[in-house]
Each structure stands twice: as C-alpha cells, then as structure tokens.
C-alpha cells in the first residue's frame, strides 16, 4: 500500500498528473484573466492613470522653478542660507530672474506659485519685474527700495521651496498650515478653512447617515415582513427615487423648500407660521441635509431590506414565548441580527455622502457646501495643484472607508435593487 502511494501517478500520455494539473490550472487562470484584461486596460487608462496624474499634480508645480533659473541654481548651491538675511548674491540672482521674467512674460506664473504659500506675492512679482530694468548693484538695497516686502523671510522660504518643481507644500496649505517668517506653523483659528470643511463634511455625512438609518429601519422592516405582493408594490416607491435623475430630485426639493415654496406655503396656509415668519430651509445646511437624505435613503433601505428578509420570524416568536417583552425581543434578538445590514447601509451612505457634489452645489448656498465643492471652487480658480491636494486628501479618506467596507461586508456583496 505504501509503495503504491509513492509511485508517481501519470496521465494517459505519460506526464506526471501533478504537473498536468498545474498546467491545466494555469491555463484556466490565464483564460479567466484574459477575459478581464480588456476592461482592466480600459479602467487603467480612463480611471487609474487620471487619478495618479492628479496626485502627481498635487506635488508638482513648475511655475517658479521654470521662471527663475538663476535663483534655482543659487538655492541649490546654498541650501543652508539664512532666510532672515539673504546675502547680496541671492538678491543679484533674483534681480536677474525678474528681468528675465519681464522678457519671457512668466511673472504671473512665478508669482502664482509663490502666492500659494505667501499671499500677496503676485503683485509683488509684477511690480518687481516692471522695475527690473532700473535695478542696479547693490541689488539688495535697490530691490528693498522697490518694495520692502522683498526682504521678508517667509518670502525667501517660499521661494527656496518653490525652486524645486516637486513639493509637499500644497498638502501643508490644504491642512491649514501656513508659511510664516519662522517656517511652517499652524494657522490661526479663523484660518482653518480646509480642515474645518473636512470636519464639517464628515459631521454632515454622519448626521445624514443617522437620519437615513432611522428612516430606513422601520420601512425596511415593513418591506421584509409584508407578504410578497404588497412588498413588491411598496418596493417601487423605494426604487423609483433610485432611478430618478438626481437633478430632478434636487429641483423638486428647491420647489418644496424655498422661501416661496410649497412647504412654506402649506404652513402659512394652515396658520402654523405667519407670512413674515417663512422658514429658510433652502440654500443652507438644512437644504443640503434634507435633499441628500432623500437621495441616499434608498442606499440604506436596500441593504437593510436584504438582511431583514432572511431573518426567520420564529426567533422573535421564540423569544416572546420564553417571556421576553417586545422591547427585549427587539433589542436582544432582532436588532443584533440586522447589524450586517446596518453596517453595510451606513458605510455605503457615509462613503457616498462624503464625496457629494451636485446637491450641495445646487441647494447648499454658501453655508451648506462640502469638501467636494471646495475642490471644484479651486479648479475654477485655476488653483489646480491645491485642488489636487485637497482631492488627494479626500481620496485617502474614501479609500480607507472603502477598505473598511471590503473587510467588513465584502465588495462582492454589493447589490443594486
């Protein structure tokens, strides 16, 4: 018996069975992979590369390094210079670059790059380039005579960092740090716009997730326990919003919630509020939260429903027959069984809410905007690197949540309708 086991098993054509199996499995693997390959290449080209390209833009800006070669060289040779008191050669290189910028018309590009970290420098560079012809040795004195700001240590720190096209400064700006005369420091409380908006986005997404959960729970339970014919009919009420254009839903919320809108008219009509007491529910955070809850509610109902559907009702009956009150039955028996659905729905709604753009842009006014709208704002102002850096931070947060979703729920269990 032992001898038979050590004897090599072979296929009909004499190859070892193990090798033949491995070859067959490799072939099957390759065949499966070849089917996926065209789509992988497509997604690589239209999705992955653009995002990597965006991340590259978030650490790259050659506006200043291209326009100021003399200073670039000087900064490279003197890495440890004192920004508070740069020597005459540095000012000479600056004067040389300024006259070059005037000729090549690159002043705006260079000024814009420095302006990210040291506000107000675009006009400083424009003025300096205009006066470049009049500058003469000693350059330090003559530049400071044009504008005393040329001696600011923060400016020299900013220029030294910008002399390389690659930088992490946009991430520093996007996390509310600012360049002072003594180097990078945390901005004052009123200057924390970016992190504040990140915080606000997460808070609002959390609020929306909780509201969605509270609204979705009873409805999903009803859908899961009703007889099939009735629940299919009611399911249409959930799926119709899911299939209706986002812009349509946002438009109808404007019609409903604006100051002269239907909800206000109704409340005035039944005397709940006076004509002059109309509520402002649109173009602020309330509008954003209400409209987004409506848009995202189906994403909570559907996973909850599919989990509740398979919970056997006999468990609850068993608990009741063993003497549990209806509250205990719910809390100890039913609720724990719905947890996978709660986790799936909540994570999905939260992830989608964090990146929301259209609804806040249309109904949020200035108070109800989220981080996506800030990215769009910087894109429209051509602050591409800063927009890319904020987008990079948002992407990191989303990928973390996505990873969590995959670990907890599994991405292949995502279902639609």
């Amino acid at each position, binding site marked *: 018996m032992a001898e038979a086991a050590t004897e090599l098993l072979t296929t009909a054509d004499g190859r070892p069975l193990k090798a033949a199996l491995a070859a067959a499995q490799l072939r*099957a693997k390759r*065949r*499966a*992979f070849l*089917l*996926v390959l065209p*789509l*992988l290449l*497509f*997604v690589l080209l*239209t*999705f*992955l590369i*653009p*995002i990597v*390209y*965006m991340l590259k833009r978030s650490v790259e800006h050659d506006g200043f390094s291209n326009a100021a070669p003399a200073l670039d060289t000087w900064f490279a040779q003197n890495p440890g210079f004192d920004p508070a008191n740069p020597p005459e050669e540095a000012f000479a290189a600056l004067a040389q670059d300024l006259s070059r910028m005037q000729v090549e018309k690159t002043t705006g590009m260079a000024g814009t790059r420095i302006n990210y970290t040291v506000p107000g420098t675009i006009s400083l560079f424009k003025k300096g380039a205009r006066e470049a012809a009049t500058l003469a040795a000693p350059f330090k004195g003559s530049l400071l005579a044009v504008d005393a700001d040329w001696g600011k240590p923060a400016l020299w720190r900013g220029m030294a960092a910008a002399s390389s096209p690659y930088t992490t400064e946009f991430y520093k700006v996007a996390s509310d740090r600012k360049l002072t005369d003594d180097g990078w420091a945390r901005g004052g409380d009123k200057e924390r716009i970016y992190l504040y908006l990140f915080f606000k986005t997460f808070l609002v997404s959390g609020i929306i997730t909780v509201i969605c959960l509270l*609204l979705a729970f*009873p409805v999903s339970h*009803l859908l899961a*326990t*009703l007889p*099939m014919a009735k629940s299919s009919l*009611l399911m249409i*009420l*959930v799926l119709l919003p899911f299939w*209706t*254009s986002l*812009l*349509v839903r*946002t*438009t*109808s919320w404007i019609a*409903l919630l604006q100051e*002269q809108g239907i909800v206000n*008219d109704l409340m005035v009509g039944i005397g709940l509020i006076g004509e002059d007491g109309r509520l402002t529910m649109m173009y602020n955070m309330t509008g954003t939260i209400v409209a987004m809850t409506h848009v995202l*509610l*189906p994403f909570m109902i559907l996973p909850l429903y599919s989990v509740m559907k398979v919970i056997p009702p006999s468990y609850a009956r068993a608990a009741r027959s063993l003497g549990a009150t*209806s509250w205990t039955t719910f809390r100890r028996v039913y609720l724990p069984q719905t947890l996978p659905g709660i986790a799936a729905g909540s994570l999905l709604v939260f992830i989608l809410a*964090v*990146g929301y*753009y*259209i609804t806040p*842009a249309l109904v949020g006014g200035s108070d109800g905007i989220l981080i*996506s709208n800030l*990215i769009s704002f910087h894109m429209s102002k051509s602050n591409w690197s800063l*927009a*890319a850096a904020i*987008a990079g931070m*948002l*992407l990191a947060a*989303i990928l973390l949540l*996505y990873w969590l*979703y995959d670990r907890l729920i599994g*991405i*292949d269990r*995502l*279902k*639609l*309708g």
Partner: protein
Amino acid sequence: MALPTYASPLERVWYYTYIVICCLVFLFLIAPILIVIPLSFNAEAYFTFTPKMLAFDPAGYSLRWYDTLLTLGHSGGDGVRDASWWSEVWERSTWVQAAKNSFWVGLWATILATTLGTIAALGLSRPEMPYRRLIMALLISPMIVPIIIIAVGMSFFFAKACVAPDSAMGAIFGYFLSEKGCLANSHLGVIVAHATLGIPFVIITVTATLSGFDQSLIRAAQSLGANPRTTFFKVIMPLILPGVISGALFAFVTSFDEVVAVLFIAGPDQQTIPRQMFNGIREAISPAILAVATILVVISVLLLTMVELLRRRSDRLRGVTGR
C-alpha cells in the same frame, strides 16, 4: 407584519405609530418626485402652486413650459408651425440638441461599458480567477470614489491625452477627438468617462446573475459537442441576458444623469440635458426645468418597469422563487 392577537394595548398603539411612520417615510421618498409633475403645467413663471392651480381653474394650467423646450434657441419661435419650423426645432433648439447629445453619449457609453463589463464579469465569476478580490475592488471603485475626484483627474489627463492632428494617429482618431486632437472637449472623452462610471453597475449586476448560474450547464453543452462560441451564445448568454440588460440600463441611466464629469471635461459642443439643467438651476431657474424633470420622471418610471420585469424573468429562469 400583522399584529398578533395577544398584543397588549401599548403594543397596539406602537404598531399603529409604526405604520404611520412608514407611510410618512414613503411619502418623503415619493412626494418630491411626483410634485414636479403638476408644477410643470404652471401657467405662471412660478416654482410653486398658484391660487388658480389650487382652485383647479384650467386657466392656471398650461403647456407653455413644454413649448419653451422646443423654442429655446429657435430663431423663429413664434412662427407658423410648418415642416420647416419643426426641422428648425430638430436642428437648433437648445434642449433638443442637449437631448440628442445625451442620448448618443449614453448609448455609446452603455455599449462600451456593457461589452467590456460582461466579458470581464464572465472572467471574474470563474473560480480560478487570480487576484479576484483586488480586481473586483478596482473595477467597482469608480462608483465609490467621489465623482469630483474622478472628474478632476480626467480633466487633467484628458487635456494632455492628445494626438497631433496631422499624424497617422490623428488621421484615424482625429474625427472622434476635439479640434486640437485631445480627449478633452470631445464627444469621445465624455463617452469614455461615462463608460468608466457605468462599469461598476454592469459588473455588479452581471456577476450577481452569474453567481446563480449552474456551471455544469457549460460542461453539459461542451460534452454535447458545442464549441466555446456556441456555448456562449446558446447557453450562457440567454441565461445571463436579463442581468446584462439591467446592467446596461443602469449604465445608461448613470450616463444620462451625469453632470460633474461633463462640467469638467466637456466643451460647448457636448451640452447634455443634465448639464443644461445644472446651469439652469444655478442661473435663472424657470419652470422649463420642471417640464424637463417631468419628462425624466416618466422615462425613469419606464426604465424601472423594464428592470423589474427583467428581474422577474431572470428569477424565473434561474428557478428562484419569490424575490
């Protein structure tokens, strides 16, 4: 959930509260969608019900906003409605142009996403597929990554993705690209972007259909002498078709409703309905938007009906009873 006969009075009260809460949530879900329909027939340029409308006075209702959809951008909007007037509508009217653009972009994006997505889903559902989880996560991610990030990345990359118009590549692809030979500001750029956004939906629906697919059917077909092509078209395809079609419908709706990528990568020639609506809501909001919204609601009702019928057919074919 029917109330058991042994329920206490408190439980009865709670039960009816629960029913009322559910009804309110359903109202919250559906009312905003239905409200646009009567509003779109408003005779006045208001976004709310006028007293005349509430009194059901026929004078309070009109089709003028639907008429605006035809005449906006039309040079002789008030003219006699003869054949040339209608052909002008077809060629010039802003909303009709937007509808045509939306339709063609949606159609090509759907074809692209469905073809690539279905083939990939076939590979992904094979048990021997390597790195299945990772690849699946990547292919689903266009649905998870915020659209603004995708749009920003695409706007950077598509502006650089160019071919020289006078080169050989330019001669082949130039027609599909912008005047400068770039993906940005071109129809192809928008189609490709929308196909990317539609792919997760196709992958999800088709792999879901395939998960209930009996693999022994393939072996049966092969043992009966069918080659892989025959097996695919005669055995696999008919069974997964409902999933493929509902994935395609999802992809089409995604494209038909998409505005952010269009705002970032499209030029003035790629005006679509959502973009027109977005600009309309931001700038001068007129009830014409509500007329478009009503038409879109009708379309989504039709699509939903189609998907539901398909699902039932699919469940029947797979032998799944109930939902």
